[in-house]
């Protein structure tokens, strides 16, 4: 099934794209999708999304259907769902 993933803030700049479409298998989670994106892109995208242990950085914000998804709470993706990933930003 197709899942749309939107990149925001530093992640968008690192990925050099704002949106991508991912083929996700039935029963996979938002967290699985993000791990896949991190591994596929590698480099700066991976370092923004994953910590040294390969776990999602706890400060990455994930939203699905207008709700925040916490890394530690697996959330099954739905067909044609849009997932938004954003990295922390500040003022200045």
């Amino acid at each position, binding site marked *: 099934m197709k899942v749309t993933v939107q990149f925001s803030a530093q992640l968008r700049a690192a990925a050099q794209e704002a949106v991508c479409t991912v083929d996700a298998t039935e029963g996979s989670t938002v967290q699985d999708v993000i791990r896949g994106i991190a591994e596929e892109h590698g480099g700066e995208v991976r370092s923004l999304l994953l910590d040294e242990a390969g776990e999602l950085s706890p400060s990455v914000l994930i939203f699905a259907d207008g709700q*925040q998804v916490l890394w530690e709470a697996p959330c099954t993706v739905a067909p044609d769902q849009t997932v938004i990933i954003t990295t*922390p930003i500040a*003022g200045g």
Partner: protein
Amino acid sequence: MSLGEPLSAEERATYEWQLDVPGFGVEGQRRLRDASVLVSRLGGLGGVVAYELAAAGIGRLVLAHGGDVVPSDLNRQLLMTHEWLGKPRIECATARLLELNPRLRIEAVGENVCERNAERLVAEADVIVDCAPLFEERFLMNREAVRQGKPMVECAMYELEAHVTTIVPGQTPCLACLFPSDPPAWRRRFPVFGAVSGSVGCLAAMEAIKVIAGLGEPLFGRLLCFDTRSMAFHAATIRRREDCRVCGEAGQKGAPAS
């Protein structure tokens, strides 16, 4: 909140356009006049927050910003002007704000929020607006806002994007719920337009006004995200973390980490 003196004729004349806003009125204006807001840093975000609050008739601003005006401030820091280059930002900002609203009381602090001053600065205000560029400062204000039970408006920007939410300790996620650890990839200098920081600064000022006046529906437990490339706006529900080091059970029992 008990309200002080009735509005003066000057105040009524100055604020007549907003006094007519349903749900605000004279009582809302008096609440603003009797309130104090801490704005941390007066850059592209904080300068606009302070200016809008001054225009709206906030009674008192506690302003914290160190350093002198430099050329790279001038693309977005609307309180700073060319003739103040090389002079203290806090003095420039104070002068500009008082030109707009001479009734405004200002506590001007010529340094950024730090471990030494955070508790006192937060204690001086009814509402905090966090506009700082460094997460160290942001986490300090969050810690003190939670400790002291003060609402805090969180605003941020990057390139053409921005976020804003309003934290109410004990009710909504705090900054440490959103970002449990110091983001290692964040850099002090980042790309942004002044029109983006100004946009989110206006929204943050409106949040502060709403919280003080009891107006509308502040962004409690919601993060407003917008992207001015596409002019796409969305507000997502955000979640408290029970194990939050600041507002969670562990943080409330002991001295929370910053």
